[in-house]
């Protein structure tokens, strides 16, 4: 591809190198806080994401306590929660705001910003062979918009009327009317403002990732020699650029309805003893707009996981990823299809049933590329020589969870069956396995794998193993039984299940789920300890600890500003030459020319030498 690009980037980098020297003794503030270095920005995203994950996890732990032990009294939480405890009980409104904030935080702040923000930033320049992102300044802005958005969302937790509490999908009219639920007052306004900044952050980041991948690849790095991670981050960014603006419009109109008396989503409402004057709006319109983002969003969350896991499985199975082109093709297919399946969230929302038929058809098509990915991962393991590093364990866990959760998508995607399962715990189980748990496993895999590149030290293996096994068993124990409750029709976002005879049979199961959830959450502190401890006391990393082929491992152990002290390596081969017959070692890095590997070249590669 484009040799012109390459000469162009070379010039740019010369300039960069010089300017490097003046800045080596940067002030702390510019080096670590308002940094424009992609590696520092990645760590900022990562650490902010980890903090959010603990907050999000803590919120879910509180509402799981309520669901597991509904008769218990929670006076002991009163010092922290204050008036949210009503007569020893959590207030139902507080429960709803916990559910809402848990969802919002996990989906957007952890698994979108924390995941893409960390790994796209960190790996794109390192793996394509660039000195930095296309625009370091926009990249810095992207983090600081995210930070601002985080601060606003965090502050909303402390409002008198509580944070937003209409569910993470904030369907109006509930989210538009403070009379209907107190969280829809200032809490909801702050949610919208925070999300607006979040969208700006996400767009700045995505535009940067796309530009960088297209323009700044090193010599020889054609699109078909990119590691699958980069393909995944690239497509994630494309999805983000196309779908987040729709969310922006969606919440903007909601803001108008809330504050300026418009009626985009409101019509014929009588609430709190008063008939509102709004007519002609449609709550369904909101749902279309929301899910037009919402469905691509779930793939924004999972695609980076696809990339990370493909990379790690190939590296640790010491085997090329099976069907490299099929892997790219399936990601392209999924990305494209993810834009035309959104209404499967709305089969019984009252929209025209004919639309339901169309969306059922499109939705079930998306299962095919997903299946292809799973088969290809299995084929990659087959006859491998597998090293169970901690990232490899998490990657295998990812595949397992993705299968378990993806399969139930086939049930939900069938509109006839969705009549029974919509808004029940079956949906909760589905997306916590396929999205939440899988994406978290992708995140953990990535952190353990690239930690040596980030901090120059290794995380502790033994703690990693314990963390993996507790988490893996924990999430299965939490989410598998949720299917049972869901099949029985138990609706999601219920504060308690005791008012219905239909659901009263599940007291034990709910207690058991809550117990498993608390244990799984506590296991994450092992990770936190390992993460921060290893930063200072971990074993020192070697340059290429996993014996991997990609370019980031050709940089020094602690890469400085500009990544490579000398020239950027040129790329000659695809990233998956593991265990190539005839090769001296069981991996050949991308920057080794064919002329140096005569013994292992395949027939068609002879000419390239």
């Amino acid at each position, binding site marked *: 591809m484009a040799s012109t690009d390459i000469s162009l980037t070379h010039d740019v980098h010369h300039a960069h190198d010089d300017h490097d020297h003046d800045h080596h003794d940067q002030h702390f503030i510019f080096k670590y806080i308002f940094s424009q270095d992609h590696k520092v920005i990645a760590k900022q995203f990562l650490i902010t994401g980890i903090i959010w994950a603990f907050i999000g996890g803590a919120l879910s732990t509180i509402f799981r306590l309520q669901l597991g032990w509904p008769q218990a009294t929670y006076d002991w939480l009163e010092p922290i929660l204050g008036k949210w405890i009503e007569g020893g009980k959590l207030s139902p409104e507080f429960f709803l705001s916990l559910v809402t904030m848990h969802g919002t935080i996990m989906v957007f702040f952890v698994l979108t910003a924390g995941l893409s923000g960390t790994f796209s930033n960190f790996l794109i320049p390192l793996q394509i062979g660039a000195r930095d992102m296309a625009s370091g300044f926009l990249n810095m802005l992207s983090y600081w918009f995210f930070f601002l958005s985080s601060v606003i969302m965090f502050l909303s937790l402390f409002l008198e009327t509580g944070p937003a509490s209409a569910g993470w999908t904030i369907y109006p009219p509930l989210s538009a009317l403070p009379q209907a639920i107190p969280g829809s007052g200032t809490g909801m306004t702050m949610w919208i403002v925070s999300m607006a900044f979040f969208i700006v952050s996400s767009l700045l980041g995505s535009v940067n990732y796309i530009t960088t991948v297209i323009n700044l690849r090193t010599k020889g790095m054609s699109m078909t020699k990119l590691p699958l991670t980069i393909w995944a981050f690239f497509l994630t960014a494309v999805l983000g650029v196309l779908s987040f603006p729709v969310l922006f419009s969606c919440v903007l109109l909601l803001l108008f309805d809330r504050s300026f008396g418009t009626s985009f989503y409101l019509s014929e409402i009588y609430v709190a003893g008063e008939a509102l004057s709004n007519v002609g709006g449609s709550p369904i319109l909101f749902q279309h707009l929301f899910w037009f983002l919402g469905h691509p969003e779930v793939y924004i969350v999972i695609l980076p996981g696809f990339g990370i896991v493909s990379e790690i499985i190939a590296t640790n199975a010491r085997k*090329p990823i099976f069907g490299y082109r099929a892997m790219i093709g399936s990601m392209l297919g999924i990305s494209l299809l993810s834009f035309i399946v959104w209404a499967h969230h709305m089969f019984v929302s009252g929209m025209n049933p004919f639309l339901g038929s169309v969306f059922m058809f499109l939705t079930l098509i998306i299962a095919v590329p997903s299946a292809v990915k799973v088969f290809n991962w299995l084929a990659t393991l087959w006859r491998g020589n*597998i090293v169970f590093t901690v990232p490899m364990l998490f990657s295998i866990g990812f595949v397992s969870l993705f299968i378990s959760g993806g399969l139930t998508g086939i049930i939900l995607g069938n509109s*006839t069956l969705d009549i029974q399962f919509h808004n029940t715990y079956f949906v909760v189980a589905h997306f916590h396995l396929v999205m939440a748990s899988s994406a978290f496993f992708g995140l953990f895999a990535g952190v353990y794998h690239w930690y040596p590149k980030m901090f120059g030290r290794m995380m502790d293996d033994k703690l990693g193993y314990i963390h993996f096994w507790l988490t893996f068993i924990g999430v299965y124990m939490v989410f598998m039984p949720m299917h049972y409750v869901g099949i029985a029709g138990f609706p999601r976002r219920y504060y308690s299940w005791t008012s219905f005879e239909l659901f009263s049979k599940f007291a034990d199961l709910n207690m058991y789920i809550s117990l498993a959830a608390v244990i799984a959450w506590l296991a994450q502190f092992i990770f936190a300890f390992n993460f921060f401890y290893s930063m200072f006391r971990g074993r020192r990393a070697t340059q290429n600890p996993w014996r991997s082929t990609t370019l980031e491992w050709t940089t020094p152990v602690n890469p400085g500003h500009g990544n490579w002290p000398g020239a950027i390596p040129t790329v000659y081969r695809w990233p998956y030459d593991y265990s190539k017959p005839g090769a001296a070692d069981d991996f050949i890095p991308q920057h080794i020319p064919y002329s140096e590997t005569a013994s292992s070249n395949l027939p068609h590669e002879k000419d390239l030498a």
Partner: protein
Amino acid sequence: MITLAILFTLALLGVILYLIFRIQILGSVYRGTYNKRVSTSNKVNATLFVVFLIVGGGAFFWSFQDAKPEMTVPVASVHGAWVNDMFWLTMAVIGIVFVITQVLLFYYSYKYQFREDKTAYYYPHNNKLEIIWTIIPAIVMAMLVFSGWKAWTKITNPAPADAVVVEITGKQFNWLFRYPGKDNALGLAKHTLIDASNEIGIDFNDKKAHDDIIVNEIHIPKGRPVLFRIRSRDVIHDVYQPNFRVQMHAVPGMPTKFWFVPTKTTAEMAEETGNPDFKYELVCSQICGRGHFAMRGTLVVDEPEDYEAWLAKEQPFLEKNPDLLAKFKNAPVQVVTAGNEKGKIEEKAAL
């Protein structure tokens, strides 16, 4: 005091764990395993995967069987049986795929664990294989879509003309039920007319409203088509009845509907479930505010004769509350908002 003791114990526990952790590291440095490419942990993890497969898989299937009586909700409608059959069929299909893929995943992990004397098999792709495993899921999906689509069309087709009509209106936090009465037509309702005595906002200027009946519990006849006309007066609610496999959102400003044919009376269900107090419960399954979790309605399925007898005894709302009409006589102004809005509402009511 107790809190202090707990904190102290936790801190102590933390210190002990930390010490164990340090000793373990020093031990492995001493033994020299610290820098080996692959330690015994590799074998341990590989084995644990198989253990996980067997124990975890076993626990899953056992618990699924164990919970099955509780999770299967007895079906009580014609299309509910289709949904149920299709569900278990789809479960069987995905169950097979689930078992095959998980077994391969963990078995391969174990079987192909690292050995010093082995190299992995360089096998970058195989087009034939890839085409096969693209086409097979595509065919299976096509079959599932087709059966789902056929059932979906039948379920969502317009209700038969002789269907029993019940209007369900959701509000924070209960359900309101209305029958059309003798003329079999529901009168207009407007949110501007709602007050404490007229919770649905029925417009009694509309003659069709005069015989409308309001009840606290729905009665429907077994074996006859029933059409729920669903509305909401404040936020979105969701009418869900698991036994009938009926679910439809209640949307303010946009009436929705769902029709079905109940197949078992309440008495029959009481017998089937062994619960003499069995009631069909209407559930709200779309988050709607503080009382979402307790928004319960009840419904009785009668033999057709009993249903007719019950209906005949129910008095129209207006007869029970004659003063309401007086109010309308005094202030018939509500209609001024122009003919076209009224037209719109009529159109909606006719949906």
